[in-house]
């Protein structure tokens, strides 16, 4: 994303949470259908004890008052309308919810939303666009490294991290370091090939 100059952190109260959604939606990161319908997921009242978090998400500042029990995954999906990260287990066992915090991959289902206070979060919506795919996204298409596509956002986020961690130099390394992301459709051969294709481009970049 190219909005780095916009560094103003919005401090919002519960009543203003909707504005956060609006800010996020203007940044063009929402699923197309959400924009078309103009119905960014409505904030529901936060019921339990809440905490205030402010963060950078996909290059945009954001802040909200959120249920202290909420996971980062449920914050993204149910509050911010960022449905790219998927829930496949909610237990840290499948990798479908993988996102980056400060550039490192995490299982967002196992990360409390409260923990992203002051951090930078990147999701699948923040790495490329339809006109300018991230090299890893293009490589997944080129090698048909997906079938149903449900694990794919998590695989791509894990794959980018795998390269940046320096674990993509051999197919064996890739297989090992991508084994936290289950693909039940069995696209593993394509995933390894995709990472091999994208790794040099990402390293150069």
């Amino acid at each position, binding site marked *: 994303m190219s909005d780095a100059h916009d560094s103003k952190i919005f401090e919002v109260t519960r009543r203003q949470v909707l504005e956060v959604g609006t800010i996020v939606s203007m940044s063009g990161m929402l*699923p*197309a*259908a*959400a924009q078309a319908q103009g*119905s*960014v*997921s*409505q904030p*529901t*009242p*936060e*019921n*339990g004890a809440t905490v205030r978090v402010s963060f950078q998400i996909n290059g945009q500042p954001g802040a909200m008052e959120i*249920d202290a*029990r*909420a996971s980062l995954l*449920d914050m993204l*999906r*149910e509050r911010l*309308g960022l*449905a*790219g*990260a*998927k*829930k*496949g*287990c*909610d*237990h840290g*066992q499948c990798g479908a919810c993988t996102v980056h915090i400060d550039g490192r991959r995490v299982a967002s289902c196992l990360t409390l939303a409260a923990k992203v206070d002051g951090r930078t979060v990147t999701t699948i*919506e923040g790495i490329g666009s*339809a006109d300018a*795919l991230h090299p890893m996204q*293009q490589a*997944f*298409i080129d090698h*048909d490294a*997906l*079938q*149903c*596509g*449900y*694990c*794919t956002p998590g695989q*791509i986020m894990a794959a980018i991290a795998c390269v940046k961690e320096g674990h993509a130099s051999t197919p064996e390394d*890739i*297989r*090992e370091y991508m*084994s*936290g*992301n*289950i*693909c*039940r*459709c*069995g*696209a*593993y*051969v394509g*995933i390894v090939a995709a990472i091999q294709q994208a790794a040099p481009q990402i390293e150069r970049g």
Partner: protein
Amino acid sequence: MTQEPTADRPRIDAYEKVLGRALYAADQPITGLLHAMTVPATIAKGRIEAIDATAAQKVPGVVRVFTYEDFSQIKTTPAARGAYGQPGKGHQPMTSPVVRHRGEAVALVVAETLEAAIEGAEAIKVRYASGPFSARMEDELASPEAEPDRQLSSGDAQAAFAAANHRIDVEYLHPQQHHNPIELISTTAAFEDGELRIYEGTQAASAFAGGLAGMMGMDPTRLRGVSPYTGGGFGQKNGIQEQSVLVASAAALLRRPVKLVMPRGQLFHTASYRPRSRHRIRLGADEQGRLLAGLYETVQQNSRYDGFACDHGANPPRMYGYRTWQGSDRIVRVDTQTPGHQRAPHEHPSSYATECAMDELAEAVGMDPVEFRLANDTQNDPITGKPFSSRHLAGCLMRGAEMFDWNRRRREPGALVADNGGLIGLGVACGSYKGSMTAAVTTLRLFASGRCEIATSGHEMGQGIRSVIAAELIEILDVDPTKLEIRIGDTGHAPQHITAGSWGTGSVAPAARSAAMKMREELSALTGAPLSEEPVHVQLARTRRLSLEVTVNTIPLGKDGQVIEQLRRGIPSTTGPEYPEFMAFSWIAHFAEVHVETSTGRVRVKRVVSVADCGRVMNRRTAESQVRGGVVWGIGAALREAGETDPRFGGVLNNDLAEYVVPVNADIGTIDVDFIGEPDFKLNMSGVKGLGEVAMVGAAAAVVNAVYNATGRRIRHLPIRIEDLL
């Protein structure tokens, strides 16, 4: 008839998927959404005596707690849960105080946030009166059915077996398995535009109108099933789920949209699964290795209350030229939820048993397993005597053997040793899957601008069905794929069939193709001349029309117009494998190379080669992926997966992805795929047979046979684990 060579195009919906923009059921942005959570039963059988919801109701944010008392108006009809097209009494949890299997929902908590719903569900207290039960077919109260589901025979197999020079008599055990698509099963119900919309990742969007409407006493036309993307189905999403009607009823009672994403741990107890089965197989051959007799008896678990037939005997007699055959399949009733179709539902377990038995018999006869299979090849079905519409199994075996370098195999187990001292084993096995089709209703609209819209029957769950539709439209109309909109999996656009049984491509390809051909006809009628080489939309523009629309009902071979009505009502109606003039199957041969570490017993599958005869290949790239996926499933079945039922409590002990182990990236080596690519125009105008399931059939057996070749151990249960080889 034209025969397009296998096209290699990017999967047409890959962009949406890599951008994270494909919206699955639980991703739909819906205003004012409430969140639900279920409370699972902690007994396997009995009655609810009391439910205390006081604490739950006090949890901030909880809107309502539902129990069976709120849902007694829900009707359980034979069609209610889809029942997989088979007659069944059915059991819908939460419509009475009766509990019929562990883990079924006993309460549904609806709240403003997911966190509140979960806390509320955890605060519910339930008192039960539990009764005696058996959850496994080996246990005391399990009830074998008196009559077999199916008996196929030809000739006097008993006598032929008794007289055979070489005989084997073995029993194979297949465990319970769980589909575990990565998309969690979920239901979102919302009243929108005067209709009840059910957003659920499904292979059967019409099942909502067909089944749910009846359960809720609603007009079926007011229910719309929406599932444009399903995050993997594998058969687990081919009917209404246990929670579907509960969520829909909650939304109706609250007049608010409600979403429930089922926790994976609960799905092991509420969704379908592949039932445990036992397979006794006796095979006899003469000195030359000709198959004289096959006797095959199987038993399989089922729930107490639904139809899910034991059908293991359907394919094995069709694999080779058996002189005589006798088979019987029987079910045993236990106290669990109803099992169902899981990728290659019976073909996988039966191919595992019979293809391993073939390996044993080849050994007994002293023949190479590939030679042995080739020597028993047939072009006619031994049971009905009918010819196959097409069968290139010998071609699959020969091409695969060459790609795999099968000749390096040594008959002596453990003869090949890797550099690190591991034992190398090579194995082969074959598979088949019926060639099926179902009806479709297709509307195709061409715009003068070049835009093209198609709405048809079928669901995308990873098999690449959109790419198949696009391939036919591109071939016949040369439309621009970037201007193509494909609407599937939504009863608001077209009636939807259950997309399963590998009939998706065989149904949608002819549907798209015939709609495209009708478009050419109509356009030429409109222009008053045969179509030129110019793009079709340019020719349309010249008529000064903005758009042209055609609608086509496709009726599969051997059926009549009634199937369209059945399709509209969500009733499954499919053909195959038997047609008036022939039997239709897809075929495959798998070759597996395993390395077994002698000190640890660890098995690695280094390489698999699979060659399939699935008729015409619609998209080489997605087809290869589908076969690789099937092989991964075969490897998972051979070495990893088993649901462990606790006989004391009736639940699955390993009910999560850490304990129910499925293959991960590090488990998978090289998988090389090839296709025979001969179209089968006897079956349909597109020349396609199915691929998604045959891809898996025989793959596990190839791995097991390779383990034998490495170690000399015949392991007759799955999965093969380290302790079996130490």
